């Protein structure tokens, strides 16, 4: 499979790396020779120097034989033009574009229509907003992912020591919390290591437990696990940029008490004209005075989403030290990610990581329809359809020759969500939710793909 990536920035770089590891034929196009050298040094990819918007360069990259084009430069316009030419040169190619500006994303239907034919528009800002909203819906969760159009949730959270399942083996789970609720433990993170557990593993105190469940049963399950969920109502958003504005707009209702802090006068005016209930404040996020004045210690969540990640991190630390319950920080630089949790910030969101996740949905081989990285990048949850002629159809879950470290979490049959047991049998067209460590992804993909499909 040949994949052309236009733009060797942070997103392009990481996707190239990930795909190269999975033995795909990757061509990276960028104007900057340094960026290309950096990609070439770390991954086994072909690089072409030139403008991604030029049809000549695209032809050089072998667009006619390519399967997927990823347009992920920082410029929306270049991404759009690259997709337009790709569509003209090879109409069958899958075109994914990263587009952020509202002036384009508001016209999604035009861009994904016949004339431009973009397969999917990835808007990292929007996805960051959605992931913050998800975090707010289950405060206390370390990570929340959604599958099957939001019907299935994969939650990662610390369980309190008094929880009935702490200390139990996974095989005893149903006897501890009742047999009627569908719940599958997907992974445990212990001492910073991710474990895909088997029935014999025990849940220990201090583990982050990842589990999949039906969203309608989420509340019951949390209660039985002994988790108290305090709803988030008092919110402070730091940074009134694109993400901050969209977030405030989403929280512009009677339920939330939102404040949004921004330091540019003009932008404050823009925000106050467009937002109804949220309180727009002008000032610097690192100014203790304003945080105190606005009672930051009463905040259920402080969300720092300015464009400057150092400010975000410092603001979150400051808010935390002043007594804010939970903090979310936006980070762009992947290098900072391992730092966030140890220094005491509860969550991080990253537009680039969101973009990478969304792009990976479309690149997976076979009929894998979506995938999400969990715990940074150590494991991935994949959503896949069991094709009629796939070797897995008709087999019981326990008989699948999945590698160790991969697990079927649940499947969706028609509109129903089924939490499987070892003897559940897979039927054609079931949507499976699978979790797997990164090394095992190619093996899982091989098991899922039909035998006759060759690339």
């Amino acid at each position: 499979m040949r994949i052309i990536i236009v733009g060797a920035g942070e997103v392009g770089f990481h996707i190239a790396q990930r795909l190269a590891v999975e033995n795909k034929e990757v061509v990276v196009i960028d104007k900057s020779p340094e960026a290309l050298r950096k990609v070439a040094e770390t991954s086994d990819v072909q690089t072409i120097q030139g403008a991604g918007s030029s049809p000549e360069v695209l032809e050089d990259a072998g667009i006619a034989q390519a399967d997927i084009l990823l347009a992920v430069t920082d410029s929306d316009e270049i991404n759009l033009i690259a997709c337009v030419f790709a569509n003209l040169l090879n109409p069958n190619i899958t075109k994914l574009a990263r587009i952020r500006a509202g002036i384009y994303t508001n016209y999604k239907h035009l861009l994904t229509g016949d004339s431009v034919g973009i397969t999917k528009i990835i808007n990292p800002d929007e996805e960051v907003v959605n992931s913050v909203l998800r975090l707010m819906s289950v405060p206390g969760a370390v990570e929340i992912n959604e599958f099957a159009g939001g019907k299935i949730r994969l939650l990662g959270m610390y369980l309190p020591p008094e929880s009935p399942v702490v200390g139990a083996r996974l095989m005893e789970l149903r006897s501890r919390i009742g047999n009627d609720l569908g719940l599958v433990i997907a992974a445990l993170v212990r001492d910073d290591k991710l474990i895909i557990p088997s029935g014999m593993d025990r849940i220990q105190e201090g583990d982050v437990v990842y589990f999949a469940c039906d969203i309608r049963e989420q509340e019951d399950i949390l209660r039985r696990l002994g988790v108290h969920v305090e709803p988030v109502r008092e919110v402070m958003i730091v940074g009134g940029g694109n993400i901050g504005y969209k977030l405030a707009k989403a929280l512009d209702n009677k339920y939330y008490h939102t404040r949004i802090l921004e330091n540019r006068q003009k932008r404050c005016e823009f925000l106050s004209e467009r937002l109804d209930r949220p309180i727009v404040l002008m000032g610097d996020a690192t100014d203790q005075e304003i945080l105190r004045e606005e009672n930051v210690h009463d905040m259920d969540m402080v969300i720092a989403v300015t464009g400057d990640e150092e400010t975000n991190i410092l603001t979150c630390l400051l808010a935390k030290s002043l007594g804010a319950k939970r903090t979310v920080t936006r980070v762009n630089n992947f290098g900072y990610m391992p730092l966030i949790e140890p220094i005491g910030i509860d969550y991080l969101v990253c537009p680039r990581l969101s973009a990478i996740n969304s792009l990976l949905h479309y690149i997976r081989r076979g009929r894998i329809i979506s995938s999400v990285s969990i715990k940074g990048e150590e494991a991935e949850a994949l959503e896949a359809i069991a094709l009629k002629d796939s070797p897995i159809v008709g087999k019981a879950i326990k008989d699948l020759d999945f590698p160790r470290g991969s697990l079927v979490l649940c499947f969706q049959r028609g509109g129903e969500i089924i939490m499987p047991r070892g003897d559940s049998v897979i039927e054609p067209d079931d949507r499976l939710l699978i979790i797997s460590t990164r090394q095992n992804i190619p093996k899982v993909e091989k098991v899922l793909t039909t035998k006759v499909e060759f690339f």
Partner: protein
Amino acid sequence: MRWRYVLHVIGALVACVGMTMVFALGWGLWYGDGTAGPLAMSMVISVVCGALMFAAFRDPSFRRTPMTHREGMAIVALGWFAAGVAGGLPFYLGGTFHTVVDCVFESLSGFSTTGSSVLENIEAVPRGILFWRSLTHWLGGMGIIVFSLAILPFLGVGGMQLYKAEVPGPTPDKLKPRIKDTAVTLWKVYVLFSALETLLLLFGGMDLFDSLCHTFGTMATGGFSTRNASVAAYQSAYIDYVITVFMLIAGVNFSLHYLLLKGRPAALLRDPEFRTFAVMYLAFVAVIAVAVYMDGEYRSVADSVRYTSFQVASILTTTGFATADYEIWPGIAQAILLFCMFVGGCAGSTGGGMKVMRIMLVLKHSYHELFRLIHPRSVSRVKMGRIVVQDDVLRGVWGFFVLWIGLFVLAAFIVAASGVDVVTSFAASLACIGNIGPGIGMVGPTENFAWLPATAKWTLTFCMVLGRLEIYTVIILFVPEFWRK
């Protein structure tokens, strides 16, 4: 400032007012009540004087240069007074009143759609004159719609620039084409509702004469009736409710009615001013109906609701018709009605008062200031619905608010100084500056203004025009800067 131009236009206006007397003349001839002579005389005098002014100050250069803000205001303010004087002629020549002040008071009470009367026995006045008296309401109502929706937003007076974009018709920067197109559009709406009300009143058993006169009083939110007992004389729940509904219609922004008739009823329901107006009306009716019923004023709930809904609509929209003497109602009912006198109808309606929009903005802005004390670093804007209210609008509204209250108090002082008791002084000047009609005390719904001294009458006459033309337009004539070249 081109004086000749102002007088030229006012001449045309006076001639037009004179020509409309032909309708009253028609009724005078039909009834043969001896009013045909005086009406014809008044008509001739007005038309001739107007035409002479129009011709004498004519200048071909007027066509080339557009009207300026100052000229616009001078024409409106002086025009209203001129129309009042011309409109007072039939009363004088017909012998209804013997003093000039009474004639001008009654006429301007009509043109300003106030409805305060110096007539002691209405039913004794011949039909032709009565018809003219009611017609002045309807003409004043026509004037006021155009004034408040075409001229004021353009001049940016009293916060009315808020409505600049919402008025039907084109939005060019020139004042004149805008007035013309907007006027024609809105008058169609006005005439349509008037025709509808007349038909409904006819259906309720009123004769054509009374139907027309009451329609004029309702649609202009005036309040002149043809009976001494006002609408109460008909003793019909049907008539009460028809008039209640049309008073409320007349108290709502006419550009919303225009959109409604254009098939966009959602605009009406989304409009924040209309919503406030509707909620306020329903809440007041509920409270007063309960108070009146508990007090044993009326035996049945239906009667309490009927009289309350009529009276609240009448006072809130500043019409001033009466079906009940609210002065014998319990204290809370009177207090609420007194508050209604200050509020008035919606901006862009024929109603008077300070207007719901201004009260809303004043309250919103006050809350906004409190909010800023709590959150000193917040950046926020006052909003009407989803629209951000600009600072110049707020300044205009506050200026209006202060001037309105100030002039109302000043007028009350003058009336009191002429020898009237204090409650009546305040009530009379409130009833006139708010274009309501009846007040409380000695000028309540069962009394009239006839007994007041001449000084008080002149003051109140001036107040009526002042209130009707949204203070600024009249008061600006008294600012020396206005007259500088």
